[in-house]
């Protein structure tokens, strides 16, 4: 039987994959994709809790799903702005590699 813990563990593993991607990869576009993976892992655990808390009328807790809706919207805006910055940066430096962009590095 599938329990709440299964969904939470899978969500945690997806978050870890995204986190490892941000830590290990040096290509800005891949880092943005790994950020998307982390946001979606959070969405999965929110939806699992939404299904777990059935309210007295017999419906899942829809507040969590509204929250997921907002997260998806913010993620879409974030990706659009992030990719626009990548394009502007590529025009300036012809690279998407984070180690080539070290002007602000301490």
């Amino acid at each position, binding site marked *: 039987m599938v329990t709440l813990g299964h969904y939470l563990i899978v969500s945690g593993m*997806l978050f870890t994959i995204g*986190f490892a991607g941000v830590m290990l990869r040096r290509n800005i576009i891949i880092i943005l994709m790994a950020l*998307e993976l982390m946001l979606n892992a959070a969405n999965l655990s929110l939806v699992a809790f939404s*299904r777990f808390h059935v309210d007295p009328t017999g419906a899942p807790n829809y507040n969590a799903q509204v929250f997921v809706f907002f997260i998806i919207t913010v993620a879409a*805006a974030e990706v659009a702005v992030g990719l626009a910055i990548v394009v502007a940066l590529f025009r300036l430096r012809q690279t998407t590699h984070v180690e080539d962009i070290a002007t602000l590095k301490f």
Partner: protein
Amino acid sequence: MISPFLFWIFALMMLIFGAAVIINRNPVASALSLVVSFLGLAALFLSLDAYFIGIIQVLVYAGAIMVLFLFIIMLLDLRAEKLRKINWIASAGGIAVAVALMLQIFSVVGKFSAAREKFPPLPGSTSDDVHRIGLLLFSNYNLPFQVIGIVILVATVGVVVLSRRES
């Protein structure tokens, strides 16, 4: 509720293709792996009776956002990156932090007693969830809904300003 067999199929599909996103050297292959990973995630949303979220996951992520990623990758003409000298100390540190995070999550979920309970049965149908979510958006969450509209507007204007060529 979903059968355990289907749950594992979709969960493994999501995790394997999610790992492929960060393992692939070719950005196009990474983006396509991300699409498959999101389709698996959408199936898990459907298994949790969240039909609206599952559908907008496919429409917004697999449709809109991934097209944006692929468009930028092809616009910038990114090839598979050349193998640079890998900084082993930094990589080992990154892997160690990620493994520590995963162990932390496992221990928290392991101590969480509700995590071992089955999902309660749903007496009613959830096929009207668009209606319910829409009602919540326009009543309890009306202010956040308008704020998110402003966020989208600012992002749109910002993208136009950022991608304008200096003349």
